[in-house]
Structures are given as C-alpha cells and as structure tokens.
C-alpha cells in the first residue's frame, strides 16, 4: 500500500493488467515512444514492446475500429483518446459496430477506451468536455467514471476484463491533484456499485468523477450550519446503482444531482427522473440538479470557473434545499 496520484493509479493498474494477461495491449496517439499525452503509458513500450504499446496514426476511427476487430478476435485492447472530446471521430465504430456486435452476432467485444475528460485548466471547448451522457444513452456500452485513485485502478481492471466495450472516463483535473493510498496488488472494483463517499442525514448528493471532490468541500462548508450531507459516488453510470441512490433518498428525502457535464440531457436528468418515478413518496423537496450551463466550455479561466460547478455553487444549493 502506497500513496499514489489518480494518474499513477491508472498507470499502475494498466501495467498490472498487461503483465497479467498477454491479450491486453495499448493503442493510441503517441502512447508509445512519447508515453501518452498525459504520460499514463510512460515506460510501457520499454517493458512490453512496440507490439503491445502501439503508436497509432492520427485517426480515432482507426484506433477504435482496430480495437473492435481485435476484441472480436479475442484480444483485450485498451485504446487511448488523447482527449475524450475526440471520441466523436470514432462514433460510428463505437456506436454502430462495437456497441451492437454482441446483440447482433453474440460475440463479446472486450475493449476499453480510455477517455481523459473534464475541464478546470482552461482547455477550452475541444479539450474539456464530459461526454459521458451521450454514451450512457447507447445500449451496449458501459460507462465508468472513477473519482479516487483506488477506484481508478480497480475500475480499469474491471473494464479490461469486461466482455462489453467500456468507456473509461478519467478526469484530467484529478490526475495529479488527488492522492490516496492504493493497494499494490491486482484487484477489481465491481461495476454498478456506488460508493458512499460521505455519510449524512439531511441531503443526498449524487455525483461522480471530479464533482465528488467539489461536493465533499461543499459538504464540509455547510457542516457548520448543521446540515448533514451524504455523498454518493456512483463510480459507474452504466450500470448505475439505482438501489443505493433510492436507499439514500429514502433516508434524507432531499437530493441534489451534481455533474460537470452540461445540464440538458445530462445523466443527472435520468437519475432525477428515476427518483421521481420510484421514490416520489419519499421526497420532501424537489430534486435539484447542479450542472454546467448549456454552452461549450469557455477558455477564459474566469468564465470557466463560472461555467463548471464550484464548491460555492454546491454549498448554496445545499443551503437552499436545507431551508426548503
């Protein structure tokens, strides 16, 4: 057990899976010699050789298409998008081919696509998005959004072993900011099981990814006002842990759904609708969504701060619900 950053945990997890299973290989733009846009695969080519750490041409469609074929043939490819924003170039391969294959032909497609996502460092509209809800809407894909180093490692292992195509959203703003103890050995974190990040009685915050930490700070801020906040880190959106969310709602009766993705059509709407359908009689206040506004992510640091939900926004939302 050692303290590791979120990025180190991803890197370690990937390395362990490659050592464990020879079918696992990495492909992406500059993942080999350069070690990846964020240095997740730094040193991988030295250890595993160019045939398992493949520098691909500048074509996300080719990378995802190649992974799909390799997975169908029995390999366990791990693709890296330099930024999750670029996955749109591979939409057709991913959505039309990979997601449908298992229903169409009955063959598993055990591939993982790593998607560095999220903003907070002035990356602007093409390098800061959180496109998880677009893929959560596609039957056949799984969507994973780790928030802690331990989960980053364990969920990556589960993604690689999973028979379905898995989109692994790793939040760039957590890469070097978040550090924690991570077990040294191989382990898997199961899909579909939320993690109670913080226990509380008054309000539930349902969230994932970097927003877990925003919620955590906000919860600490309002604690002095006597507001006890429970934070559920969903960890995986497809499948998502409906049971844990409903149980928490039944306890607190007030909910905030928080995400960094934009408001309209964000996955928070799905969660809010499910709460309304299945826990209506347990609600003591309207379900509140806190999300980014429906615009592209701005470059300007000031505007980006206004755009991405901040600790103060969440604290204000918590106080508003507490007073309701």
């Amino acid at each position, binding site marked *: 057990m050692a303290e590791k950053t979120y990025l180190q945990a991803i890197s370690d997890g990937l390395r362990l899976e490659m050592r464990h299973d020879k079918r696992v290989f990495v492909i992406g733009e500059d993942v080999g010699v350069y070690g990846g846009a964020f240095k997740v695969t730094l040193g991988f080519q030295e250890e595993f050789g160019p045939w398992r750490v493949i520098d691909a041409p500048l074509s996300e469609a080719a990378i995802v298409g190649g992974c799909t074929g390799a997975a169908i043939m029995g390999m366990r490819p791990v693709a890296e998008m330099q930024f999750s924003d670029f996955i749109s170039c591979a939409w057709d391969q991913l959505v039309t081919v990979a997601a449908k294959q298992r229903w169409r032909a009955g063959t598993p497609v055990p591939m993982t696509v790593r998607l560095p996502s999220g903003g907070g460092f002035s990356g602007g509209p093409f390098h800061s998005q959180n496109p998880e809800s677009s893929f959560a809407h596609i039957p056949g894909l799984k969507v994973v959004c780790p928030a802690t180093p331990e989960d980053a490692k364990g969920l990556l292992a589960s993604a690689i072993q999973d028979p379905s195509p898995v989109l692994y959203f790793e939040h760039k703003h957590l890469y070097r900011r978040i550090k924690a103890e991570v077990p040294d050995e191989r382990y898997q974190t199961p899909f579909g099981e939320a993690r109670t990040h913080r226990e509380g009685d008054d309000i539930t915050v349902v969230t994932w990814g970097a927003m877990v930490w925003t919620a955590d700070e906000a919860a600490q801020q309002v604690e002095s006002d006597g507001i006890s906040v429970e934070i559920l880190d969903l960890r995986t959106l497809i499948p998502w842990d409906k049971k844990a969310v409903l149980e928490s709602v039944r306890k607190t*009766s007030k909910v905030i759904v928080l995400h960094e993705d934009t408001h309209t059509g964000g996955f928070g709407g799905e969660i809010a609708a499910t709460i309304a359908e299945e826990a209506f009689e*347990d609600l*003591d206040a309207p379900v509140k969504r806190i999300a980014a506004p429906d615009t592209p992510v701005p470059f300007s640091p000031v505007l980006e701060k206004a755009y991405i939900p901040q600790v103060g926004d969440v604290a204000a939302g918590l106080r508003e619900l507490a*007073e309701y």
Partner: protein
Amino acid sequence: MATTSAIDVVMPQMGVSVSEGTITKWLKAEGEQIAADEPLLEISTDKVDTEVPSPGEGVVQQILVQEGETVDVGTKLAVIAPPGAEAPGPAAEETPEPQAEEAPAPAPETETEPVAAAPEPAQPPAQAAPAPANGADGAGEKTFVSPVVARIASEHGVDVGRVEGTGRGGRVTKKDIMAFVESGGAPAPQGERAPQEEAAAPAPEPTAPEPTAAEPAAAPEAPPEPAPAAAPPAAAPPAPAKPQPEPVAAGVGETIEPMNAMRRGIAEHMRRSLDTSAHVTTVFEIDMAKVVALREKLKPEYQKSYGVNPTYLAFIARATIEAMKNWPWVNAEIRGEQIVRKNYVNLGIAVALGGGQGLIVPVIKNAEGLNLLGLARAIADIAERSRNKKLTPDDVQGGTFTITNPGGWGAIIGTPIISQPQVAILDVEALVKRPVVVQDESGQDVIAIRPMMNLCLSYDHRLVDGAYAAQFMKELRENLESWDESAY
C-alpha cells in the same frame, strides 16, 4: 325576532356526508325585505335540493355567493340587517367573518340535523367555534405538503395542520412531522375540531377511539324509529379535499357545462357502488293479471275516499316488503366484517328529475308498517315533494332497500346499480300485453294474452347468493300473481 346585529346566512349542513352546496337561485335581491323563515335562496347538494329560509327578519344587505357557485358548508352566503340595525360597513364585517374551515364540522355521529341548519340569530357562537388547530399563525392558509410528509401523515394518522412547520413559508418538513410523531403526536380523530371541553387538554391519547358508524346507539338495538341513527356508515370518513376541476377545452361541435353537486354526487356514488358490491341481476317475468284487475276495482274507491291513486308501484312495493319477511338478507347490509339484519324496511323510491337533471331517492321510513293504501299515499307524498323540492335531508337518508321504476317509459330489462350501503335494488319494468302459454280450466295448454311485467333484482353477491335471490323473487312473484286482498 328582531336583533340589533347583522345576521349571517351560511351554507347549511344538509346531511352527514354533505360537505358543500351550490346556490341555484336567490329568491331575494340585495336591499329587499325578508321575514324570518321566509325562503331566501335555493341550494342544491349531492343529497337534496332545498330552499333555505331566512334565519331572521330584516333587509338582505349583502349577497356574498352568486348563483351557480359551489361553496363549503358553513360558508357565509349573505348578510341580513335586522330592522333598526345600522348597516355595518364592509370593514366592520371583516372581523367576524368565519373561515370556511371554522364552520361547525359535520358531527361525526348521531346527528339530528334541523331541516335547514341556518343558525338562529340567538346562536352566533356556532360560528365562533374554536379555530381548528392550524397553528397559531397559520391563518388557515394551506401550505404545500410534500409527498413524503403526506405519506408519513397518512401512515401515522396525523393531521398535518397540527404540526408546526419550520420549512420555507412555514411548510411542514419531513423532520417536523417525524419529530411530531416521535414525540407521541396523536392521530387526529376523524372529524375532530377541538371541541371546547377538550380545548384545554393536551393532545389526546394516541388510543383515542375514532368515532365510527357502529356507535352503540346505532346498530345493536335496531330501534323501531331507526331513521336518523342509521346514517350510512359509508358516509363516515370525511371527504378528502376536493380537487379543483381542471378546465377542459371544448372541441368543435361540443359544448361544456360544469357538473352540479347532484351530478357529482351521483357519479361518485355509482362508481363507489360498483367498486364495493359484487353486482348480479336476476330477471323474473310476472303475470300481473290479478293485480291489474284489482287495481281497476280499487281505483275509483281510493280516489274517491282518499284522493290517492293505487299505482302498480304501490302493489309491487307491498308485495316486495312481504317477501322480505322470509328473505331478510335482501334488506340487510354488510358493515365491516358483519352482516346487519334489519327488522324494518326503509324503502327508497328512485325519482327522476326532469330533463336529465339527476335523480333523487326519497325514503319511506318503516314501510313494513304500511298497507297498500299507506304505501300508495307515501309514494304520492314523496313524489310530490321531490318535484317541489320540499324534501328534507332526513327524507333521503337511511334507506335499506330501493325500488326504481323505469318501466313507465317502456323499458323491459335493466341492471340497476345498488344504492350503498344497501345490498339490493328492484327494477320495475314496463307492463305489456304478451301472448303466453297458460292452462285452461281443463288443464290444456293454450295461448293467452296476459299483462306481463319483468322485475329485475340487482343484488350484492357478497351477501346474497343467486339461489337466495331467486327464491326471494319467486315469492315476490307469487305474492303478485295470487294477490290476497285481505292480506294486504
């Protein structure tokens, strides 16, 4: 009768379960003189249409509710200024104006309503009843009740109005109601309005018995004059807050009109009856030859001596009551898990109002004590009073069995809906001449022309089995086909 202060006219309580009424007509305009007990307005409720007499003498100073409006029982409808009284300005009358909620609540049980419950001027305290526990500064306003609070309130039988709210705008939060329940907050007895004797006492014990229709006074003794106490238990639970009707848009070629109180009452009762009773209908053919002949004979005598017409309905009512002696469950009731048998017959007669305006079911009390003449008179009386809107709430309550009579329009078969909480209803169909096979004096089958009538009995199969109903109907048919003049 003269008093010096203004007299309020309020929507009277027209029966136990009636919570609102519609003003159908003002008989006096503002500024007109009115004598005490002189009819002031006409109202329509889901039970009865009636006139409301003036509670005092004076001038109609102000009419507060217009024709066509539906308001809760106890709502102030008008103000009458007594002779010599100074007309109070509008500001002066704000003060005593009762909230609708403060009106005397329906007494939970054994109520003996005056015909029109407009308070006598001598009794204004009826409106000064203690305010319902709405919180000291609740001001009777309704605040939003969230789904979870509504559920907890319902599970624990808590009146949300009794809980102090700490949420926005005084809203009762989940925490508030949980704290109330955990601190031993009592379930609110149904219909409770904090009567004065209890006002000083702390919250009632959680075990406070809820008043139910099965009060000792009502059931076991089955008194000979059961009428007022036998208020249908189905009427006991207070009606939930009525939802505001949503406005609907008229399509091309459609016209839209609001439902009046009677129509809403019928709609609710019919639906509830089908949801409650297991309806089955049995049809019997009756050869009415003997009754027809007897009626022709009695008609001139009845009209000359008593001024009343011996209708077929009277014959059938008499024969029905006679048949019930051997088949009493037709006249019984299911109350909770128990069967309530009755040694009296309160016979409801369905009377249609003209123009599809609805129907009303006045009740002939203790009809088992009336012979053919008595029934003919009673039927004529209620029919007359139904048409003239002179029925009182008592007239339409406490029925134990109902007869409906659409045969006058030529109907030959019907499957009527039972009037709750009764278990059977008899449908009297058209009397028509039909060729039937009968036996002549020598025992030969011949075809004869006979005045035939179908009687259809809808019964609640929860209590009355098919064979039982058929045997009752068989006896009813025998009573009619072999009418014994001396017996009836």
